[in-house]
């Protein structure tokens, strides 16, 4: 039928720019990453210098101490997500019910999220400065004789990064929680109050279960985003001191663009892809099990 043909044509015309863009900029690159991860090659060399090495890049990854450290750091960074979500939920409940100037508070806590991570990283570099930075000066003033060197210290660097990530991410979770709280019917709380329920009972029996889909959503997107953190590491610490804050994306970047090992870097990319896939699959299967509506 002519009508149907027209409809088909219109559909293809409308989606074609997006589909072509995704094909060239996302789908083909994904395939190339997949292929490159089984090769030994550097992109400054000619294509015919490319050597297929099977799974050698992947076995090399497991023996590469920088890679295992970076991945371990990634796993540590995952801790940021639940902490951030818990703080955001508590703040959201308080702001939603127990304060005046709701929207002002929303703006305040959202500020770090919209600010550029580069600028934020640069500010925190100075705040954490070990000898004359304001944080350590303040600590010394209240009697801490030997405050930590924060970003310059092997053991404090990663926790410092995590602290900043929590600070940056709270606003995003808060805004989403606030929207979720709006959707909870008010009469649930009213009837609970008639039954004599206190604030904590109301929170654990009504609020917490009813926002569980949101919590689950924030957890999953947060974990995935955490695997992608790169900017803050690159600007704040460059992975240092001695790889204590390096993450997979950062090591991938230096391997590909500083050391010019394209094949090896691609195997890390595939590994990263695998991590994100794993979380997504767990999400798809876990959603029904863990979320109570």
């Amino acid at each position, binding site marked *: 039928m002519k009508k149907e043909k027209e409809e088909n044509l219109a559909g293809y015309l409308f989606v074609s720019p997006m*589909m072509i863009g995704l094909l060239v900029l996302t789908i083909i690159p994904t395939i190339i990453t997949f292929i490159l991860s089984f090769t030994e090659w550097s992109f400054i060399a000619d294509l015919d210098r490319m050597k297929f090495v099977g799974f050698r890049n992947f076995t090399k990854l497991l023996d590469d101490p920088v890679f295992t450290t970076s991945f371990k750091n990634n796993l540590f960074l995952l801790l940021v997500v639940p902490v951030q979500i818990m703080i955001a939920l508590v703040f959201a409940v308080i702001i939603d019910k127990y304060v005046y100037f709701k929207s002002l508070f929303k703006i305040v806590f959202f500020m770090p999220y919209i600010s550029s991570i*580069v600028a934020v990283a640069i500010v925190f570099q100075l705040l954490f400065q070990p000898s004359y930075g304001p944080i350590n000066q303040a600590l010394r003033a209240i009697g801490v004789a030997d405050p930590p060197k924060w970003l310059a210290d092997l053991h404090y660097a990663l926790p410092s990064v995590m602290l900043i990530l929590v600070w940056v991410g709270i606003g995003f979770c808060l805004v989403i929680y606030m929207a979720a709280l709006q959707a909870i019917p008010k009469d649930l709380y009213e009837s609970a109050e008639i039954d004599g329920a206190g604030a904590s009972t109301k929170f654990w029996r009504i609020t917490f279960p009813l926002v569980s889909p949101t919590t689950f959503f924030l957890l999953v997107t947060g974990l995935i985003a955490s695997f992608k953190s790169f900017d803050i590491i690159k600007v704040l610490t460059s992975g240092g001191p001695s790889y204590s804050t390096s993450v997979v994306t950062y090591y991938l970047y230096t391997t590909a663009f500083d050391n010019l090992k394209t094949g090896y870097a691609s195997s890390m990319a595939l590994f*990263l892809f695998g991590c*994100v896939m794993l979380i997504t699959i767990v999400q798809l299967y876990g959603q029904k099990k863990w979320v109570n509506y």
Partner: protein
Amino acid sequence: MEKTNRMPKITLTVVMFLLGIVFLLPFIWMLSASFKPEIDVFKYPIEWIPKNWQVYKNYNEVWFGEHPFATYYWNSIKVSVLTTLLSLVVSSMAAYAFSHVNFKGRNLLFVIVLMTFMIPTHAILVPQFLIFRWLNLFDSHLGLILVGSFSALGTFMLRQFFMGIHKDYLDAARIDGAGQYTLFTSIAIPLVRPALATYAILRFIWTWNDYTNPLIFLRSRHLETIQIGIQKFASESGVYYSLIMAGAVSAILPLIIIFMVGQKQVMEGIALGGVKG
């Protein structure tokens, strides 16, 4: 929690207000440091309100000194505005087709779009870089704009909004003989205009803040955007912390302004799409 219920709202407001100030201290410190002469930056106790002001000299040095902040700004504005516009056009076209045009293979194509959603951007940086070199898009603003414009996220988000348009609106116009192009431009687009504004603001903010893409896809100094510029400025000007802070303020300020103006749209967009740049 039992107590907070009885505590007057005012007390909690004050407590949260104090917490909010603590939360914003890094910004306040940044702003205050950018207004001071260098020797006062690390003075303790911290002079939150500077005793000696040096606003003009600091900002003048940042903007018109060795580092071309005006150029960085112009590049960022150019890339962000064009990315936002292109992304709006491409995403809304696709989103409209995925919601209101019945064409063969629609579901399959949409699943493909959703699948690209899962691919971490950092995992495909190297091939993107190679493709850009082959296509001569490397080290150009055009390449940067293209990378930012074709996102599954935009299609997905706008589709949600287009789905909200009732079929009857479109069917009525269709009976009058309007084709899909007319339906799209004169009925669907005007109906989702607020949603487009929301997406535009978010896309602008994400592009402005983007650091990875310009880092990978640009080489020439005169093409660099503000995020690259400020990072270089910070690592190259070493000990001029007041100037570095003035640079940081300059990088954040346009976003704060846009956020203040479009605050409602941003919050709604984030809450509705539950999206993350």
